[in-house]
């Protein structure tokens, strides 16, 4: 019985390692040989997590592979970890997943082609908006009427209807304190 279990375990182990070799071949066919040396330990954990955080979980809504508990994301995380352990760098890991899932799988769009718009559009929006605000403020300033003097403009004018003239003069005398309703001559110094 023990022997049977041992044989079974051995068989499982052999097929698993055979499968691992096969996958490495598949990865190699897409992104070539690893650029770095194999890594282990906390360094591996940190780098695998970093790479997984840049991959979009294909079955989620806007979640990274690192953050998602979905089965698919867990399997992708394992694949990322395996690649990083073999010495593949972040670019190679992302390129491998991009090959099958397309650029959509990258949470951070690479700076190429039309993607430049994503980075430049906010800046351009800010510039255009700023220019518009400056232009509007300047226009508003130009349109502001000159500050009111103490006596409103046109107050010296008299109505065409001569019958009204005495009343207007009377109002001015009362309102402004001008003797006879006529503006006194101001001495300018």
């Amino acid at each position, binding site marked *: 019985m023990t022997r049977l279990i041992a044989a079974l375990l051995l068989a499982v182990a052999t097929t698993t390692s055979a499968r691992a070799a096969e996958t490495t071949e*598949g990865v190699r066919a897409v992104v070539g040989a690893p650029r770095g040396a194999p890594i282990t330990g906390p360094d591996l954990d940190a780098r695998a997590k970093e790479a997984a955080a840049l991959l979009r979980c294909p079955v989620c809504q806007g979640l990274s592979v690192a953050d998602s508990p979905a089965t698919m994301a867990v*399997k992708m995380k394992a694949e990322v970890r395996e690649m990083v352990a073999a010495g593949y760098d972040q670019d190679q890991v992302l390129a491998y997943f991009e090959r099958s899932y397309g650029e959509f799988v990258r949470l951070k769009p690479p700076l190429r082609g039309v993607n430049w718009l994503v980075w430049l559009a906010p800046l351009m929006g800010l510039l255009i908006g700023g220019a518009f605000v400056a232009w509007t403020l300047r226009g508003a300033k130009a349109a502001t009427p000159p500050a009111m003097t103490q006596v409103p403009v046109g107050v010296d004018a008299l109505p065409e209807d001569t019958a009204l003239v005495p009343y207007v003069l009377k109002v001015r005398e009362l309102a402004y304190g001008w003797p006879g309703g006529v503006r006194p001559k101001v001495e300018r110094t």
Partner: protein
Amino acid sequence: MNRTVLGAGLALALPLLVVLFANLGRDPHAVESPLIGHAAPAFSLSPVDGGPAVSLASLRGRPVVLNFWATWCIPCIEEHAALASAAGRAGNDAQFLGIVYEDEAAQVQRFLQERGKAYPSLLDGDGKTAISYGVYGVPESYFIDAEGTIVAKFVGPLDPSTLEAHLALARGQKP
């Protein structure tokens, strides 16, 4: 002043409207597979009911229909009959293969016993094959020509005529 404001508003809004209307009929989840026109990723997987592993390389020379599926997936159950009958009709001219996606071997075996098994279904326990093909969900079908190049990908349940049309592409016939 008003004309300028109107002009500026239109200049900002028009490109947005164009983008909106150009994409209204598009499914935002339908991302075209970058693998089309490229070599199908290799795999060697064990059939769900035992026996030697099946590798894609061993099928070179015949078109291959690769169907990712699971027993918990309702559309997969819907397309099962269409796939089985097409596989029967194709005989040795084309190889149909199922790849089990996030499911248990026992469940899959029971399903195939009940509904009929026309071609092998392979286990992809660690999901590496699904990942290498860029599978988003099931069902997804890949049509591979005799040279091992992916010629088409179909997302969702296949009906008999869609299946025939895609299989014709894999056979190298013009649609």
